[in-house]
């Protein structure tokens, strides 16, 4: 298995991955399971679950595919390939977008897109809540967290980790 192909597959995924991390998962499956047979479908599902479990972007699961193909070097290559090309593209377009400031079309577009994106944020709240606020305890935790985060500037990382400890002791 050559590293160039590994890098190429993930770089293309990175650049065609419109719609955020979750949107590229089906294409990643098509490439690494069905087309190149680097891993089995069951492995893919397990890697996806681990990607969800870890705190970073789910797309980081590319590292596990890379590891299965070529060990630690494969993991590093896949990770760089899946994040760097899109990162550079976003940087370039973000730069261009800044330079357009003052252009009336840009302002019209920026004005219009904001409530649309906010609608997506709210849809995300409901989607996350459906999966995670699924019992009285988790609903309660979610609501307490909401109020605390609205009322205080407390660090949300500490809140997440504290909840993790409480959950480990009391939830199953």
């Amino acid at each position: 298995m050559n590293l160039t192909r590994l890098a190429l597959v993930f770089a293309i995924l990175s650049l065609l991955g419109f719609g955020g991390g979750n949107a590229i998962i089906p294409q990643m499956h098509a490439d690494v399971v069905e087309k190149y047979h680097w891993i089995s479908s069951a492995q893919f599902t397990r890697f996806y679950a681990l990607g969800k479990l870890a705190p970073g972007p789910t797309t980081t699961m590319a590292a596990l595919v890379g590891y299965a193909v070529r060990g630690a070097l494969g993991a590093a290559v896949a990770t760089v390939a899946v994040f760097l090309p899109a990162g550079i593209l976003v940087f370039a377009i973000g730069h261009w977008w800044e330079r357009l400031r003052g252009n009336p079309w840009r302002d019209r577009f920026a004005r219009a897109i904001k409530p649309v994106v906010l609608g997506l944020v709210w849809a995300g709240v409901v989607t996350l809540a459906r999966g995670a606020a699924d019992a009285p305890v988790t609903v309660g935790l979610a609501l307490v967290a909401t109020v605390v985060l609205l009322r205080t500037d407390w660090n949300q990382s500490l809140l997440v980790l504290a909840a993790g400890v409480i959950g480990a002791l009391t939830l199953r």
Partner: protein
Amino acid sequence: MTPPPEAPPRPSLLSIATTFGRVSATAFGGGQMGAIRREVVRRNRWLGEDEYLELLAVAQLLPGANPTNVAVLVGSRLRGAAGAAAALLAAVLPGFVILMVLAAIALDSRLPAVNGALRACAAVAVGLTFANAIEMTLPRRRSAIDLAIVAAVALFVLVLHASLALTLAVFIPVALVATRHDAA
């Protein structure tokens, strides 16, 4: 018209990296996007609500994972190319390391305690996203057009399970027409 934002502050590269790195290392349960907004807008005041929402829009329109796209755009806005690189690296690296460690101990991850911890973290992630959505919506509460678009988009996605591409294709033109006489 979007008011020209004040020049953003220039935090050190280290503080950009530690902020995104801390989020990437700790956002168990799906709260990374929420944690990034809270850090950037509320706790550090690096960007205003409106400016952040615009970057979020650009991030969603482009290919790539949302957290890394937002990291690049925020980093770039604060400290140019070096800021973008620091933010991108910090948004990926801690999560990558933790993922590799988790994979190494994956056989034990069926432990009920791990499951309980993750359920609680995910519940806090819901609260984080919810609190953010409220804070992001408050500045627009007097615009009936905005609230109508927000509600229509959310319902479109939730009820019809529409893809991001379809949602944007339908609602960007609608929003362009609806807001054509409107100041931001």
